[in-house]
């Protein structure tokens, strides 16, 4: 039952519908249904946020440590270094996301061209 399990053209779409659409719009529709019945501050919602944050962070960790495609040809130290320096730049620039993104990309590209990792 993985994404590539069946050869049929419709299987990936069904996978996306059940694994993605139902799992997101289900919560949105529940939100409309509940109306104003829950508040932003309840402890349960803190758990909801830490859970979501940890899940997405886990994907991000995997994308940096076990990347695919051309990024896999770049040494681990360079990948982690570029992300870390970009993140520090973002903090220094008072949480400016654009600064963080641009610095991380600049560090990666500079290291890749200087080191010739992808030649």
């Amino acid at each position: 039952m993985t994404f590539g399990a069946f050869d049929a053209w419709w299987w990936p779409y069904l996978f996306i519908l059940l694994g993605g659409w139902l799992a997101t719009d289900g919560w949105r529709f529940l939100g409309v249904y509940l109306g104003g019945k829950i508040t932003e501050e309840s402890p349960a919602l803190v758990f909801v946020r830490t859970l979501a944050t940890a899940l997405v962070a886990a994907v991000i960790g995997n994308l940096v440590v076990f990347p695919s495609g051309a990024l896999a040809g770049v040494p681990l130290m360079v990948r982690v270094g570029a992300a870390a320096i970009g993140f520090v730049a973002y903090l220094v620039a008072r949480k400016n996301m654009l600064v963080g993104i641009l610095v991380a990309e600049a560090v990666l590209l500079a290291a890749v061209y200087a080191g010739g990792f992808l030649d």
Partner: protein
Amino acid sequence: MADSSSHTIHRASDYRHWFLKGIIGAASIPGLILMSAFVGFAGLAREAGLSLAQTVFMTGIIWALPAKVVLIGAIMSGASLPAAAFAVALSSVRLAPMVVALVPELRTEKTRPWVLYLLSHFVAVTSWVLAMERLPDVPRDMRTVYYGGLGGTLVVANMGVVAVVYVLAGSLPPELSAALLLLTPIYFLTSLWSSARETASHFAMGFGLVLGPVFHVLVPGFDLLLAGLIGGGGAFLIHVMTERKVRQ
């Protein structure tokens, strides 16, 4: 109809006006940053083996970027459909309280429920932040129209961005291709940190970053679920304990 025609015409132009304002409102700094994230997502989906049509379909039907990135992550680690759906569902619970907070801003007594259900599909971090910020300046009976313009534009524009980047990504030199694949991680490193409301979410981010790769090696296929439950649960425990200390 004839006797209320002047009134109707006036209202129609009002709707058009606020719908257009919503569309224009999508062109913003958060909108620009979101677009860069979708540039990265297109490259990521391509590397994960999704077709162009599947990638654009996924963009429109799921919309929330964290959910899509978790789904792609699950696909890449060979998760089965139930495990993938569970991980996506856990990562998306937060959409419910976001919608709960938005609905009272949007609706009037006359708003039909199906309109709210339809508009709720546009709820994801960026459109939600923009809407919560700007809706107070929109006349109440024009808010659903405004949000339709804003959210609809963000979705459709980014479906276009994803399609174009997916096609272009095939002919990028490897250096730029690597840079494209770094976009998603750096986008989320900064946006997760920015959107954290309490220190616990910062802990959750740190735990997830480390546990994801660790469980990827130990329990492939369930890495995201375990990292989310253990990392998120651990961060929540820290939150509960520090809250208790504050109260004592």
